[in-house]
């Protein structure tokens, strides 16, 4: 078996990368991709712990997460398309109508 800490490191690294992407990328699609990345990292974490603790709950929860991720991305991309249609851009820095 692969040792738990290594898998957790992997999950943490992926998660951090995702966080960086969410916070720092200008392209909205890339932000969504980063969110996917974060969700997948969490999945890895859940399965790893399920395996380590011999509990099937981890895998079940991971399935839930995948479902939610899929739905969420669908909606997210729909929103991005609409923004593009209205603003001619998907640069998140330029969508700041609620600025003071």
């Amino acid at each position, binding site marked *: 078996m692969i040792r738990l800490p290594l898998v957790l490191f992997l999950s943490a690294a992926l998660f951090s990368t995702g*966080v960086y992407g969410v916070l720092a990328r200008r392209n909205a699609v890339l932000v969504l991709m980063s969110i996917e990345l974060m969700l997948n990292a969490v999945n890895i974490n859940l399965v790893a712990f399920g395996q380590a603790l011999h509990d099937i709950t981890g895998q079940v929860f991971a399935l839930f997460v995948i479902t939610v991720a899929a739905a969420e991305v669908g909606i997210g991309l729909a929103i991005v398309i609409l923004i593009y249609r209205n603003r001619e851009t998907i640069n998140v820095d330029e969508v*700041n*109508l609620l600025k003071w």
Partner: protein
Amino acid sequence: MRAIADPGAFLTYSWLIAFLPAMSAVLTLFIGKRTPGKGSVYGIAAVGASLVLSLGVLWSFVEGERGFYEASLSWFQIGQLHMEVGVYVDGLTAIMVVVVTAISLCVHVYSLGYMKGDVRFTWFYVVLSLFTSAMLVVVLSNNLFQLLVGWEVMGVCSYLLIGHWWEDHVNSSSAIKAFITTRVGDVPFMFGIFILIFITGFTTSNIPEIGEIVSGGGASVGLVSAAALLLFGGTIGKSAQFPLHVWLPDAMAGPTPVSALIHAATMVAAGVYLVGRLFFVFTDADPIVLQIVGIVGGITMLGAALMAFVQDDIKRVLAYSTISQLAYMVAGMSMGPAGRTGGLFHLFTHAFFKALLFLGSGAVIHAVHTNNMSEMGGLRKKMPITFWTFLIGSLALAGVPPLAGFWSKDELLVVADHGGHQVLFVVLLLTALLTAFYMTRAVLMTFFGEFRGHGEPHEAPRTMTGVLVALATATVFVGLLGSPQLGAVFGQWVFFEELEEALFVPWIAVASTLAALLGIAAGYGLYNSYRERDPLRSLGAAYTLVSNKYYLDDIYWKGIVRPVRDDLSAGVYWFNQRILDGIVNGTATLTKTLANGVSWFDQTVIDGAVNGLANIAGFTGGLLRYIQSGNVQRYAVFLFTGVVVLAIIFTRI
């Protein structure tokens, strides 16, 4: 004195004597103008009925036992002080009510003629009846508060009657002078009453009860002496003794019937009656009190008699004569119980002949339309009835036997001699001489010689002459009531604790008759040939002093009236305007300043604080709004930071 065991009808109904004139006053006031005769009939009927009752009361003392009758109604009670309304009738009361009702009836009838056609005829009778009622209340009263009520009502009626013709400023000023001067005497009088009530422990003002306490030694001599002196103050005011005699001559501005009733026979006698009724206070006081009374009487007697010498107005001669005769009575009072009887007898006789003289002078004034004797003369042929009655009155006043004045003066002289009051004896005798002199002067100037006036004087109407004749008759016979030869009946009615023996001392009788005749002779000698100039003017400075009333009026005016009226009131006014109003206005200004300060504080500080708080909110908002950048990623950063912080906190805990 003991209480009468079986009072007859007259005594039980004696309260009516004072009540009937009061009722007639009210009646005349409301329906007088509509009655035929303009309301005079009610007063005459009431006073006439009172006279009958009074004579009945006197009769019960003639036939019946000696003593007193007292009846009262309890009125109310203040704390311990018991107020009542009641009558106290003894010989003195009987005498007084007869005098008051008789003279009042004479004046009521006389005024029918004298005041005919007067502009306020009905009101005159109203106040006349009211006055009679008040005087009777004083005389019949059994307690001091009731006496005081009657006393003050008399003062008011005197004021109203003197100022009857108030359109002339002189009359209203005289009325005010009379009222205020007697008031000045009333203040010590009231304090005297208060002391007497205090002696009873503030339980009652009943006169017999006070008498029992005082005579029984229930009060210290000092307290009783103080009370006596203060009560005498009331007498000085009301009975016009020195130094409060100044109002009586000016009171002659009133109608002559008023002068006869009030200022000759009754109201001024009230002061003497007071001393007589409360004599026990005077006898139980320090002897110096009675000496002071005697001194006041003596000074007044001589001073007033001298002032009567230099008057041109016939009523003023009689006014000063009244003051002098009242002083006789006061001096008599000062000589002890025997003198009290003598003084009250003189009051009795004096009322009749002085009223006669005043009413007679009224008839003369009515005929010649002037008061001044220098414009009269030779009236004895034109007004015979008036002349003869006036002559009888003058002889009585001078003290010629067997008329009334002789007996009363003689009795006073006897008391003075037997009591060892040598000075008073001389003063009394001297004044008798002076009295005879000035009355002779008056008679000669008015009725003899040539007529110096204008117009055609005629005899007075019958209502007036009838009264004069009645009074003259009374003057002739009433003196005999006190003559020792006929048993001195008067002394059996009026006595203090025990009967006084009336003596007839021949040499004194001769001396007083000689004094009277001497005065008459002197007057005749000087005035028989009176033409224009009064012979007394030759006396120069003495004449000036006396005719200016010893400058006493000027002293009062410059020393008391003017400073109070002008300076004191101006000073008080200044104080009120500047200082008192200044304080009030200053307080208001202070409050306004304080209000301004509070307002400033409220607006600047408090509102500033509230507004400042609001401004802080706005300012903080202005700073905080920069958080909202509109950049979603920025928001996500905050979110993640918060999660991390929370994670750290929860894993540490």
